[in-house]
């Protein structure tokens, strides 16, 4: 399988502190890659460097062989890369449906055509399907700010898929989500991966979620990759146990 995402020698320093230190890896098409490691190991900084939120100090990022380093986040999204953030990032004053329409509208036509065109940018039906898919139908007309934390988390993830991305980077999607909702979220992600062949990179501390969802796992510690392999392999790796999982 070809590499959708290639990261080469990526580094990011904040003053004298090296948050990401020469990280290289590939993500293959259709893969669900887990990215784990202790707090402060550089996982979110790595995401932010890949996705243009932070300018890397060194290194290169490629999507389908095309260099995207330092590209703006909005342009990266239009290339088919979606993401979620570690902290909840929905738009509280918009309804659930409007949040989803917003998440896809900028992929429809030009800025001017969006001004004179349909109010829902032709995404009403797609938003309704996404609402059904993520079991949010009863909340479609509610303002996102009035939803529970878990429901907002589901909406946050759903928004990342509205534009039909090829590659989605999920930063702690399971954080603060109850077990029942989490099982549902895992099923939704598996289904999107199987049906749409979407590729995922998932940062997560919930080991059960990572091990049951991901096909391959990378372990980051102090800004470097210390282990890589199938979930079972990584779980029994002595370096990973020492640095992150514990005895």
């Amino acid at each position: 399988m070809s590499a959708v995402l290639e990261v080469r020698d990526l580094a990011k320093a904040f003053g004298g502190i090296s948050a990401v230190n020469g990280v290289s890896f590939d993500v293959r098409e259709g893969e669900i890659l887990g990215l784990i490691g202790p707090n402060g190991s550089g996982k979110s900084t790595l995401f932010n460097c890949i996705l243009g939120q932070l300018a890397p100090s060194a290194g290169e990022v490629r999507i389908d062989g095309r260099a995207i380093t330092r590209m703006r986040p909005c342009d990266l999204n239009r290339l088919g890369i979606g993401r979620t953030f570690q902290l909840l990032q929905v738009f509280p004053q918009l309804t659930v449906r409007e949040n989803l329409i917003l998440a896809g509208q900028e992929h429809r036509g030009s800025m001017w055509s969006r001004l004179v065109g349909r109010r829902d940018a032709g995404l009403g039906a797609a938003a309704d399907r996404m609402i059904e898919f993520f079991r949010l139908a009863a909340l479609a007309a509610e303002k996102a700010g009035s939803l529970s934390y878990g429901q907002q988390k589901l909406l946050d993830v759903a928004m990342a898929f509205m534009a039909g991305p090829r590659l989605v980077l999920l930063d702690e999607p399971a954080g603060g989500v109850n077990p029942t909702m989490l099982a549902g979220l895992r099923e939704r992600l598996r289904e999107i991966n199987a049906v749409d062949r979407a590729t995922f990179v998932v940062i997560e501390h919930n080991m059960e979620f990572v091990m049951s969802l991901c096909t391959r796992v990378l372990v980051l510690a102090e800004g470097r990759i210390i282990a890589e392999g199938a979930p079972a392999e990584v779980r029994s790796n002595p370096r990973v146990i020492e640095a992150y999982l514990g005895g």
Partner: protein
Amino acid sequence: MKRLLLLLLLIPLTATPFFLKPYGIYLLSLWAVMTIAAIGLNLTLGYAGQISLAQAAFVGIGAYAGALLTTQGWPLWSAFLLATALCFAVGWLLGYPALRVQHHYLAFVTLSFSTLVFLILRNEEWLTKGVYGISGIPRPTVLGWSTKAPVDFYFFCLGILALVSLATWWLVRSPWGRAFTALRENAIRAASLGVDTRRYTLMAFAVGSALGGIAGVLYAPLVQFIEPTAFALNLSLNLLLMVIVGGSGYFLGPFLGAAVSVLLPEWLRFSEGLYLILYAVFVMILMAFCPSGLLGLAERLRRFPR
């Protein structure tokens, strides 16, 4: 229901001037003009979340464009075209600092711009006649209809306000309105969803400023004499007050806010020397207990039993 409510609002707006003296009609016209300027600021600040203390400068640019052209015999529509284009372009440029700074820093950038425009209006006498101002600004004749009489000019202002309101209503309900809201609530998340936050920020400034310019073009023939101090910081703060008091980010906020700012002090004149004190106390209480403005208060009351 909302349309019915809007129609019911139109009845007093069209009937009231026939029962008022010229000063009352002047105040209603001023309300319509200031509402247009506040709608522009509401777009920039209320919807897109970009603070601006420069709206008075754009009203000034529009007013001087209108006054200079119409006193030279040009028709008012040419002033509308020039002021809209000029304010759109200058507003777009003023948006660039907003790409780097936000909140009170941005407020100071826009405040500096406002001061710069004031100084140009005051000092460049060859163009603006400086502190002497421009007088004898004519009121237009539109398709044979003379708007010289106060009541006619009021309906002209009301017509322009209706057009501006319809256009803004369309804009805020379009995907642009959603993108502006996203920009206000979380620009980083918006960008990650493909929203070109840079272009929308500039557009929010440009469109809001253009509406300030349109208000200025109407202001000049309303008062028929303009001079620089009318467009100083005081007006910018007043327009900001209109947006905040009415309800920042609510479509009808500027209409209510302008009524409070333009009409309420006049209604309080029964208290003679106390009217400005009463007005200040009203604004302070409102802001202390309902920072989301009158429409925010109405929404809270509507949701109260839930």
